């Protein structure tokens, strides 16, 4: 075992406490500020109330933005789930020239800065497709989101496939099952949880995305992060923004929480 002197241990514990404080105090300050009676954020908070929570719950622009976020995240998750699974199967089952490149291509959309991805799509939509008479509009956002979500599904499904026993599929084929039947009855049940876990992460990633959305959202359409971004420049609505931010924390954490539960349950079960 690593033996450290008492002083070193105490220094370590102080450091760890400091890091955790650094990670959690800002979020706590934010959540508490969503209950601020005043519409301007400050510390310490003078008086608490649910005023802005009630306001946010019925405020139409927030509802519209939330709906847009859910539509975009759902659409891009469905596309990413299909494409990510296909790539995972291709990379798992076959050796071919350019395999490493395919792997890199899947990772690239999240490895490159969001502003580059966003500008690239925006440039294609506005300077190429629009002049050619094709207006992609709302769907442009979903296309862009789906592109960087693929890697989430791919990573999860690929990791699961690598640990799967290929002889089960062979056995199924030997017993006369077709490819689709084997996939539906033998293969899919084995990676279903990884598939769902990956899709949930893709949903969370899309739901939270802002930079690519700035450049690909059609004029007048806000997702929840876009709405927050616009309000951040107007300090008079600070507390409403804090309310929405708190809601975003909750909505983002739920899919991730379920996703990790699924992954863990599967790791322990198998």
């Amino acid at each position, binding site marked *: *075992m690593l033996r450290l002197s008492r002083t070193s241990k105490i220094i370590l514990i102080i450091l760890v406490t400091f890091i955790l404080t650094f990670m959690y105090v800002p979020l706590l300050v934010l959540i508490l500020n969503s209950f601020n009676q005043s519409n301007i954020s400050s510390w310490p908070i003078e008086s608490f109330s649910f005023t802005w929570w009630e306001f946010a719950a019925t405020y139409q622009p927030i509802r519209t933005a939330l709906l847009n976020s859910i539509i975009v995240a759902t659409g891009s998750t469905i596309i990413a789930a299909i494409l990510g699974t296909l790539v995972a199967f291709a990379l798992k089952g076959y050796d071919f020239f350019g395999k490493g490149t395919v792997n890199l291509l*899947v990772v690239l959309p999240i490895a490159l*800065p969001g502003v580059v991805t966003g*500008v*690239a799509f925006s*440039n294609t939509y506005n300077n190429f497709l629009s002049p050619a008479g094709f207006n992609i509009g709302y769907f442009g956002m979903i296309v862009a989101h789906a592109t960087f979500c693929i890697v989430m599904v791919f990573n999860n499904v690929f990791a699961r496939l690598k640990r799967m026993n290929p002889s089960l599929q062979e056995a199924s084929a030997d017993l006369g099952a077709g490819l689709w039947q084997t996939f539906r009855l033998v293969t899919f049940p084995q990676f279903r949880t990884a598939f769902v876990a990956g899709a949930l992460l893709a949903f969370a990633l899309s739901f939270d995305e802002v930079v690519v959305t700035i450049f690909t959202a059609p004029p007048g359409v806000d997702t929840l992060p876009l709405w927050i971004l616009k309000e951040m420049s107007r300090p008079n609505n600070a507390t409403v923004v804090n309310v929405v931010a708190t809601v975003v924390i909750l909505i983002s954490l739920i899919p991730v929480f379920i996703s990790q539960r699924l992954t863990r349950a599967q790791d322990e079960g198998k």
Partner: protein
Amino acid sequence: MSAHTTQGGTKPISSYLYKRAKVRLIGLIGLPMFWIVGVYIFSLFLLLITAFWFVDPFTSKVIVGFTLENFISIFTVPAYISTSIRTLLIALAVTGVCVIFAVPLGIYMAKIARPWVRNTLAVAITLPLWAGYLVKIIAMRLVFTEEGFFNWALAPLGISGPTFSIPIVILTLTYLWFPYMALPVFTAIRQIPPNLFDASSDMGAKGFTTIYRIVLPLIVPAIIAGSVFTFSLSLGDYLVAKFTGGSTQMIGSIIASNINLNPPVAAAFSMVPIAFVVIYLMVARRTGSLERM
């Protein structure tokens, strides 16, 4: 195989595909590659092409043509050069701070904490990763604003914190991307076999020497893997600078402010972070650290 020859008549498609691995592979990879290459890579390619166009100075319309002006401006306009260097230094600083935080945290979690403390900490450092990007920027603004939590907490000591400037940008970026460094470093330290520590202490090394001579060399690949995220995510960011940096500009700020006014300049400038990230990835690849990602 005999089962297949007899079944061939009833499941023609399956038997056809069963024998033809290449057809199956193309069927699997065709659609995703069409999407990634045909849509995404093609868009990046169009962006590169746009970088050679220019804007009519009178009508401010984009003119299709060929000029190297936009690329030359990256290397000649002083404000562009200083912004590129500033961004590079900020990204490196964020990576450095993340390492400084991640190593002691990893050592504590992997080798000193009790199992339940370790598990709790593992969850605790993963959770904020998903708390929302803008949410964390807002949170840092609340803490470091003039009348915010930080100045309030330090007021009794007579200290007042920094205003929104480069140090807060570095701190906020660290706040955003720290888990990407902390998790691989923790995993790597956990995988160090305990007998290495016994051997080290048998040979007379004190705790700190062991960390410096045994732990650090073994976790270099994990640090490099983590740094790919902390570096490239910081490099491309500009909203953190916009909201916590006062007047601080980063590469992304130049791209974002030009995309509507002067798309060719934005396009040319987009190649700067791509170049930085690709160079960084190639260096990281040489060390063989990317295999673990």
